């Protein structure tokens, strides 16, 4: 059984037919070819599939595509503007927060949701915000540093 959903992905309005058991993750990766969102477990354990849905970071493997009807979604592909990296992306690159990169899209989006809510997070708040995003490569230290640095850049940008 297919159902028509209408939603906004990275600023673009999309109408699509989805089956009722299809997850948002499958819809993004397979139907929309937005493969920047990663599949690490499909069970809500790893956070690699994190996207921002109506302002909140969610595991897209735990959301059905039909549940996303009418929502606004941001994936990693929608973060850079005019070919310019978002401060979080830039900080991840500069600080060495990326190794294999498989956790990176989800990690960056969890961080984005945090900074949208708390522009000046403490280290503990940063660690808590990404505690659902597993990274096996980095030991998290450089990720935490990168998020801290990006927060500063975003704040300065907003002040000016």
């Amino acid at each position, binding site marked *: 059984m297919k159902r028509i959903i209408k939603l906004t992905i990275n600023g673009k309005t999309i109408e699509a037919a989805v089956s009722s058991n299809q997850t948002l993750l499958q819809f993004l990766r397979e139907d929309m070819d937005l493969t920047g969102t990663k599949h690490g477990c499909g069970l809500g354990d790893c956070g690699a599939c994190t996207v921002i849905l109506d302002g909140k970071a969610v595991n897209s493997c735990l959301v059905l595509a039909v549940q996303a009807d009418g929502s606004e979604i941001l994936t990693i592909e929608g973060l850079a503007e005019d070919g310019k990296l978002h401060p979080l992306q830039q900080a991840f690159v*500069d600080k060495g927060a990326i*190794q294999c990169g498989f*956790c990176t899209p989800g990690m960056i989006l969890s961080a984005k949701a945090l900074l949208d809510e708390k522009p000046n997070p403490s280290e503990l708040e940063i660690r808590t915000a990404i505690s659902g995003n597993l990274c096996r490569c980095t*030991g998290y230290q450089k990720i935490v540093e990168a998020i801290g640095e990006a927060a500063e850049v975003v704040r300065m940008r907003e002040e000016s």
Partner: protein
Amino acid sequence: MSDYQVLNTRAPRVDGPAKATGQAKYTDDFKIPGMLYASILQSPVAHARILHIDASKARKLTGVKAVVTAREAGLIKYGVSPARYDETLFAHDKVRYVGDEIAAVAASDQDIAQEALSLIKVDYEELPAVFDMFEAMKEGAPQIHDEFPGNMNAEVHQEFGDTEAALRSCDLVVDHTFINKRQDAAFIEPHSCLAVFDHSGRLTLYTSTQVPHYVMRTVAMTLQIPVGNVRVIKPYVGGGFGPKCEATPLEMSCGLLSKVTGQPVKMTYSREQVFLHSRARHQFYAEMSLGVMKDGTMVALKNKAVLDGGAYTSFGIATVYYSGSLLGGPYKLKTMKYDGYRVYTNKPACGAQRGHGGVAHRACFEQLIDMTAEKLGIDPIDMRLKNIMTTGDITVNELDMSSLGMKECIEAIRSGSDWNNKKGKLPKGKGIGMACGFFVSGAGYPIYRSDTYHSTVVIKLSEDGGVANVMTGSAEIGQGSDTTMAMIAAETLGIKLKDVQVHSGDTDYSVDLGAYSSRQTLMTGHATKEAAEQVKSQIASHLSEELNVPVSSITFADGIVKFDGGPGNFEKLRSSYIKEHRGWMDPPTGEYLTFREAARMAYLKAGTIVGTGKYKPPRLGGSYKGAAVGTSPAYGCSAQIVEVTVDLETGQITIDRMTDAHDCGLAINRTSVEGQMQGSLSMGLGECLFEEVKFDSRGRVLNPSLGEYKIPTALDMPKVKSIIVESSEPNGPYGAKEVGEGAIMPTIPAILNAIYDATGVRVNELPATSERLFMALKDKSEAV
């Protein structure tokens, strides 16, 4: 400060922007028109005879394109080491663990493939199974492989000097036993493969692997395709840590199904299948005795290992050798004896994982050193320094420490953690502990016996001279090898990092044994350097001819060419370059000749400028049996200090701080070196405190998910202070050596030594959970 332009800096990774924007493609991100989806049928029972397989219903299901079993795949044995090929792609007579592969299906979509699996009927006659390594060694235990009586997969006996006599002559002998638990590598990207068998009989595999070269060889052998017709391409890989170091049933199945159907076939393991495939850290039992003199001089080490191998060999032979050979240093021992046993059980096979074979035994040994130091009343750091090896020392088992900054690492963490003001002075419940370790910088020999080069590299300049393309079969799996090779090429050619492009992970580009045993920086690095030198010397000789200057007067750095240190007279080259590129946006400017102009001139004279480099280690090691395992052209080493708080009521452990020093020779990229150090610590912390793959009484994995199998989160990791120690390694390119695995060696024992310092309780079984510590604390208080 170094004189390098590119090396030893914190250059951002070359693949950073692609990975930060989601543009980087991993295997499962690929889609090809007409692509089929595959799935593997795995055994639900741990040990059984296969009586009959009926796939007729599955074959009839609409959308199913092929079903393959051992009948179609054949019974060619494969494995990692040719000395122990004990697997076939699909089980035919017996299944040996829950997860053993029986059949594979290709269908037009994933759901149909899955449904088809459920239609394959397999009749089993269940056999008694054995899951515990000690049980498996007992007489009368179920036999898993007929060829290996007593379930003894591999045995190692090595002795250097007369250990028993040496122990008798010691003032003090201290014993310790230790057992870890099976660990999962828990890389975040599950294995995935896309196979394309084309009309010319060529098979291309896009696959999530650490070792394109070995996958190519194994797949060619098992599928009976000429090896020259198999091409393995490794897209970006989401972590490997060891288990992606060998060809998988997933890769072979995809290849076979594509060959049978003539269509591209893709398969990705579920997270549960990653656990079932395993090939990760073994369970090790270690039993050791250390003999010392009163002044703390180490004399003799006796070491016994029992490894739970699971149902097949995988990397296991090397693993069981490493558990012995990697204790030869970094302390001077006069004698050492090692007895190792790797045992088959009816569980998924274990293989290589970060710190291959060495981690658990290092954990036991470094605890033993602390126990001994305590009995002698010597500070653990002083005890180690008294026995430490330095550059030029050779271990009792003949490993050559051609550079070794072990002492410098220890001094660095001692001051970096303020050890002297903390050791013995902390309040109850707080503790500090340390440990050391070392690791190979590339295995001295390939997995199969061969005179092959371990790495070859091709560098090809673009025709305009502006880009150096580095082509290598080496595997970027997250550790940063592409960036490392780009930096080595840029430095050697004397050009800017941005003007190098690395094309890697493709068996068509060059020969490279891949990302295991921490080998690429040294080995691929050597080959890259040599290829770049060749390119540079070609350009220099053309320049010398063209401008009539001696070759020795020409130098390259930072994208420009100097003649006797000055600009020289190059006007005619510049005007001809500009003439050829009229209207282009970036004409060469400035007072010096650019590399680009020089390279263009060389192209006009000689055609495409290509340089090639190659590396293989010289003959290394002793001549005793198994002497090859543990040899390496160089060794990295590290020392760590961990500070903990233990709640003495509940046993709850908090890691407060970690101070880590690693000697990686010249740090090619300082940020990446720290990244490897920090990642190693987190993997070691997880194994020490909570990771354990558990089984039920029938051999089924109880926690095959990242929810139930816990790995460290950002909240579990403390602040880490990473200190890079740089010795100069004579056998490494620019003096560089490993960091990716040596850095994990001290982590577990440093934590356990800190827990002892805080509580007076020795944890000798991992994971050191609060329950286990609570029980140990209780036992201790009841004993007094």
